[in-house]
């Protein structure tokens, strides 16, 4: 069995009287994308900060690539890449300079940033200052920056938040490529579709606790409602009915609906991750 790239056990952190992370445990395998889903203030960023060495846990253990955090922080940080929610770039420096500078912090001398810049479609603007970049370009540069050390573990905090579809697509493609390369990816996002499409597993986090963790499909099958919506026309009027697939006799109901005269449309409906999150947390993600 493959050793997990990340193992978190009983993690706890409180800011004074406010508990931000409470008994959080999970693992992430190499090449796996774990989607961290939760509303603002749920504890996602605090968990990531502890995993990346920016905060020391008050309780619990974190093991990354077999090394313990914070004891072997520097060795872990040499192997990870972090893309923050804030666009924390050096705006007076060019895209190229930003990458070269961060490479030096990893002890990489003479980095050729061009392949990375091409990968995030910024090669043509590589010598422009980051201050002159659009929001999408800055985000792509942030992603490129998180890859300068060819990380074995990648932490991405809201990497596509507020981006145009083209930039979002480009970033999703890169995340998938990194996972395919073997990097373990921890992704926090508000975007249900993104989490659904990208994540091998998702973790619902709410008020500092993990409520559920599993593959999106498994969660949807286990907790979501499945139904078929049938629309038909009878005597000039459009009728609509919803057949639940979870109850008894669903097969007969569907057969009857398909045989109805004047059938217009049949749609299968399944729960979204947001529906399931609401079921667990009693509130939405935003």
């Amino acid at each position, binding site marked *: 069995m493959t050793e997990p790239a990340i193992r978190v056990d009983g993690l706890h952190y409180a800011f004074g009287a406010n508990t931000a992370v409470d008994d959080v445990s999970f693992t992430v395998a190499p090449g796996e994308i774990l989607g961290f889903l939760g509303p603002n203030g749920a504890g996602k960023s605090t968990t990531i900060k502890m995993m*990346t*060495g*920016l905060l020391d846990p008050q309780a619990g253990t974190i093991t990354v690539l077999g090394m313990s955090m914070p004891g072997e922080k*520097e060795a872990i*940080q*040499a192997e*990870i890449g*972090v893309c*923050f929610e*804030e666009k*924390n*770039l*050096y*705006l*007076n*420096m060019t895209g190229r*300079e930003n990458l070269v*500078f*961060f490479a*030096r*912090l*990893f*002890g990489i*001398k003479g980095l050729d940033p061009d392949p990375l810049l091409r990968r995030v479609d910024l090669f043509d603007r590589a010598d422009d*200052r980051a201050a002159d970049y659009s929001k999408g370009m800055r985000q792509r540069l942030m992603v490129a*920056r998180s890859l300068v*050390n060819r990380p074995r573990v990648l932490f991405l905090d809201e990497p596509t938040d507020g981006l145009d579809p083209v930039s979002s697509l480009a970033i999703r493609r890169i995340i998938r490529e990194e996972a395919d390369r073997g990097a373990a990816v921890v992704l926090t996002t508000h975007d249900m579709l993104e989490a659904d499409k990208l994540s091998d597993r998702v973790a619902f986090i709410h008020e500092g606790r993990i409520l559920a963790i599993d593959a999106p499909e498994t969660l949807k099958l286990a907790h979501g409602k499945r139904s078929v919506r049938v629309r038909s026309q009878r005597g000039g009027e459009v009728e609509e009915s919803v057949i639940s697939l979870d109850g008894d006799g669903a097969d007969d109901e569907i057969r009857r609906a398909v045989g109805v005269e004047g059938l217009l449309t049949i749609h299968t409906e399944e729960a979204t991750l947001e529906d399931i999150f609401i079921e667990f947390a009693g509130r939405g993600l935003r």
Partner: protein
Amino acid sequence: MSRRAGIIGAIIRKDLVEFTRDRFYVLITVFGLVIYVAMYWFLPSSVDETIEAGIHWQGGLPQELSDGDGLEFTPFDSAAALEAAIDGSGDVSVPIGLDFPAGFTESVRAGTPTTVRVLLTTDVPAEYRGAMTSFVRELAFLISGADLPVTQLDTTEVILGEDRAGDQVSLQEKMGPMFVFFMLLIETFALATLVATEIQARTVTAVLATPTRVADFLAAKAIIGTTLAFGEALLLVILIGILGTGPLVLIVTLLLGALLVTGFGLIAGSTGKDFIGIVFWSMLFLVPLAIPSFAVLFPGSAAPWVRVLPSYGLIESIVRTTSYGDGLTDLAGPLLELAGWCVIVFAAGLFTLRRKVATL
């Protein structure tokens, strides 16, 4: 070790790039340097110690009232003309006037009371008033041929250090240390802004998610701040031509001064939440720190509380080197005091920045 040095070097190189590309930093640095150098060379480099006084004396001036010993007399025909020269309404202007009454010589020789009017402009220093009164009394004794009340008493002047009589410390010399100090302070603003920008933009978080330690980040900021402040202050003392008065002691003093302002810059940068916040904190430090440099402008010793200010040792060392030729041994006291403040302020700056970074 080499890895740590590589990281610190990378941050320093990055800071230099950011510094040189920020118009604000470049502008205030170049502007400060040009303005201070220009102002220094425009200031008078010597002090005219001659006291000009107007005299109204009926008849020909006695031989005892001839020019000399730092006194230059301008005769006036009438008391009214002398008064006009004092109050500025006449063609000629003098700050001090001596209006001798008719029959002054006869009166003093006869030992009868007489009154000499000493006329002064409002801005004449108090010590000049006493000096003029004493001068008139001495003149009376000279004219009467009588001895001064006490003839046995004699005084001997002992000047500890370089005797600057006849070569008083000029305004240019007095302002030099102030310009050097303000040049150092400019870097407080620049470093504070550099640090605050890292904190506000959270770039420091990105840096600390790499193998960079907080200590590396702090070391880089300390080195860049001290180097920039020291470099610019050194350039200023070269351009105003005072480095030659004591190169070693000035270099040591400026280095300590650069460390001191860097400490304050780290505190201001870590505490100020935005540019206004930085200006607020910097000004809070600037005003008390500037007091010793103003104290130099006025004669006499600085008040005891001024002597304990962190910048006192810096100003004192520059003044005593450039104006009195003191060396490292002479200045051991103020330099040690300055070094002590450097340790305290620098430690406070590092502590504040470390705390700030930890809470991001």
